Structures are given as C-alpha cells and as structure tokens.
C-alpha cells in the first residue's frame, strides 16, 4: 500500500533521515520505534507531505505521492495524528471534529463518524463545546486522534498517540488502534511505548540516527534482546 524507497530528508545541513526504505501493506499495523531524535517524526511528516524529501521516493497505492501537496495527500486517504497535539486552538471540540471531516463526503457518513468518535472517546462528548485550547493534555491527544478518524482514512499515521495518556487509557488507545485496523484502516504507528506498540504490530522497524537498523514482526522484535535492552527498559 505504502512503499518508501531510499528516503533521505534534511533540515538545512542536518541529515535527519538517511536512505530509509520500508513498506506498509494493506490492512497491516506497522510500527516505527526508536530513541528521541532518531528521525521517526521526520519520516512521517515527509510521507504526509509536510516536509520535502531530499531524495528517494514514496509510493502510495502505486502512485508516487512525493510531489503532491499535503492537503491532496489527505484527500487521497492518508490522515495523520501529529506529534505535540496540534488542535485548532480557539475552535470548540465539535468544530475541530468538523474540520477533520473537511474532505469527507456525505452527511450520513459524517454523522456516523461523529457517533463513532464519541463512542471511542466519551470525554470528548462531555467537552463538546469547550475551546480545544483549554482541554487537558490527554484530552487534546484524544481530540487529534478523533479528528483524524473523521476523515475516514485508508491509511492513518499515528505519531506517539499514547503520549500523556493515563495508564488506564493507554490500554484503551491500543485497543482502539486495533479496532480501527480491523475496521479496514491500515496503520503506521510511532511509539515510545515500544512494548505495547510491538505487541499489536504485524511488523515493525527500529530507527536509529536516521537509519533503519532492524526489522521483523512485532513478536520477533519483542523477543530480540538488543531491542529489549535499548527500547523496552531492560
């Protein structure tokens, strides 16, 4: 479904991503794990069109999407949950969700999506008219996730969706990820909580200093002693 070939991305002179190749197949959950500053977010932003690659190619459903602008990529079915809770500050929770459905066709579909989001994140329903800027950190995280789901994505890019969530909700969020995956959405997941991420992933890649170091199925990597030492906390 998504194929990244020899991707390199620079910030000025800093070479943040070096010659990275990987792929995500239809219906999979694929994880990228790695330390702070490894380049995970950079890869994600390049896929969603927010950053321009220096070299390499990104193919989505057989089409090269590298030259396509970010809004068109959303239109093609790739949604993202960005790092750092990018809510529309100043707009209410409801309006934020409406924006998420900006390209979604059909009133009924949109209504259905609302219902689903509120079912998954009941707290958003409680806060429906609150200014998104005043939500708590975790609430914002949920809102961004809900917003991305409003677009009915074929492929969803998740950048640390569990950040700042209460332990009880972390389990839930991974359940939700599994759920949307089962409902037909392909998932590319970045997580610091590598243990949880790997346990729900079909496959995963380990990113270190801008390069892919290791790859395998979720279970393989969970069992790998290097991975355990470096990313799972011993």
């Amino acid at each position, binding site marked *: 479904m998504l194929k990244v070939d020899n991707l390199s991305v620079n910030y000025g002179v800093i070479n943040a991503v070096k010659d990275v190749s990987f792929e995500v197949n239809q219906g999979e959950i694929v994880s990228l794990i790695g330390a702070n500053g490894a380049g995970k977010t950079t890869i994600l932003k390049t896929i969603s069109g927010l950053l321009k690659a220096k070299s390499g190619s990104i193919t989505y459903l057989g089409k090269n999407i590298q030259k396509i*602008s970010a809004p068109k990529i959303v239109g093609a079915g790739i949604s993202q949950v960005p790092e750092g809770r990018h809510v*529309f500050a100043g707009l209410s929770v409801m309006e934020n969700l409406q*924006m998420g459905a*900006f390209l979604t066709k059909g009133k009924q579909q949109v209504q259905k999506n609302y219902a689903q989001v509120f079912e998954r994140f009941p707290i958003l329903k409680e806060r429906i008219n609150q200014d998104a800027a*005043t939500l708590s950190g975790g609430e914002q995280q949920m809102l961004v996730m809900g917003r991305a789901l409003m677009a009915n994505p074929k492929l969803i890019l998740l950048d640390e969706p569990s950040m700042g969530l209460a332990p009880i909700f972390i389990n839930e969020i991974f359940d939700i990820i599994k759920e949307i995956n089962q409902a037909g959405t392909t998932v590319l997941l970045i997580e610091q909580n590598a243990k949880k991420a790997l346990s729900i992933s079909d496959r995963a890649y380990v990113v270190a200093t801008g390069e892919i170091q290791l790859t395998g199925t979720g279970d393989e990597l969970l069992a790998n002693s290097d991975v355990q030492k470096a990313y799972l906390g011993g």
Partner: protein
Amino acid sequence: MQTFFQQVINGLSLGSIYALLALGYTMVYGIIKLINFAHGDIYMLGAFWGYYSINTWHFSFIEALLSSMIVGAISGVVIEYFAYRPLRHAPRITALITAIGVSFLLENGMSYFFTSDTRDFPQIITQHNYNIGGVLISNIQILILVTACVLMILLQLIIKRTKMGKAMRAVSVDSDAAEMVGININRTISFTFALGSSLAGAAGVLIGLYYNSIDPLMGMTPGIKAFVAAVLGGIGSVPGASVGGFLIGILETLFQSIGLSAYKDAVVYGVLIIILLVLPAGIFGKNMKEKV
C-alpha cells in the same frame, strides 16, 4: 431633535463607509494576521476603475460596481501572490512592511502615471434628498448603508456556512493543522484576499459616487480609520468590523457636532484606547487565554 436625528444619519452614513472598508480589512487580517496596509489603496484602485470605466466606456452604475469588484479581487490576489506569499513563513512584521511598500507603490505609482490631481467622480446616479420630518437623507447614503449591511450579512454567511468559510477559519487558527485535515492553504488565502479586496473595490465606486472626489491618496486616511474600526470591533470578526465602523462614524459625528472638530480624531483614538483597555481584544474579539 431634528438636528439630533440628522446627526445620527450623518454618523450612520459616515460609519457605513468605514464599515465597508473595515470588512475587507478584517477578512484578511482574520486569516493571515496581516495588517494589509494596501487595503485602502485597493479601494482607491476601485474608485479609479469606476471613474475610467464610466467616463471612457460609459459603464452603467451596476456594471461599474461589479467590474470594480472584479478589479479589486484581481489586484488583491496579485498583490498577495507577489508580495505576501513569499513571506508566508517570515515574521509577521516583515509582511507588514511589504504591505506598507505595496501601499506606497500603489499610491505613488498612480500619482506618477495618472497624476495626483483630484478628480470628480461621474455622477452616474443623481443624488436625491428625501426629507423625512426635516431630516435629510440621500438615496446614495441609503445605498451605501444598505450595501454595507447586506455585505456584512453575506460575509457572515460565507464564513459560517460555506466550506470555504470553514477552511478560512481553520487556516486562521492553525495553518499547519489545516493542511493536516486536507485544506489547501494557498487557495483559501487567495480566496480571502479576493473577497476582501472585491469589497474594497465596491467601496471605491460607492464612496467615489457619494463624495464625488477621488485622488491617488484617497485610501490612506480611511484605510487607517477602517483598520482602527476593525480593531475596535475585534479584528477578525465580521460583525465587529461593522460595529467598529459605525461606532467610529458616530463618534466622529458626535464630537464634531458638539464643537470638538479639531480634536475629533484624538477623541476617537482616546475612546479606542479606553475600549481596548476594557476589552483587550475589541468588542467582538475572543480574548484567547493561553492554557498553561
């Protein structure tokens, strides 16, 4: 009493002119937080377009009005493309300086190529006065007043009800996030400029017709006043711009009528400052408190 009502009419019609200009200001500011200094000059371009199209091609009033809206929209979009778009990611104050540069360019370019003479605007609609119980009101005053109100409602509808309006609001609060949900930022901003500038173009023809006098520097003073009106109303807010415009028109009239004409601008600024101290984001502005 008659005088009082006459002054109210005077204030409303002056206010409707400020409101008309402030609407365009607030649209553009609302979305890219740019004080578009050149807005007043697009109004001037609209007036000149009306002048030439009526005198040279004998356009009717409606033709002149509509075509000057188009001219305004095109100039707005072109200016945005060349002078502001390259600065999308630059500090806002930089774009403000280019806006000032564009304003200088339009004012002085027009002066240079078409002379800075004052011209009399063709009186394509003859002015009639209606006398209502001793209070005079002219057909053109009514026209401007009605246009300002209709446009305000129309704009509000566009922003609140249409998809483009939704996109405009999204871009205005967070352009990065807007891209992430699939909104084309450039197109949205161009549309906003087109809309705001077409209002300025229309204002040019209406005000040209009303005062019967146009010149290349005509945009400067009302431009600044309209900006003040937009700020007063809460910049970015459509009803705010109108209310701000009317308020300034009425205040100016009030202070002139009680004999403070020499200080009228000073008093208006004084009131502005006081209102801002009470309502730091203007009358209709949302005072965004940061969450920590």
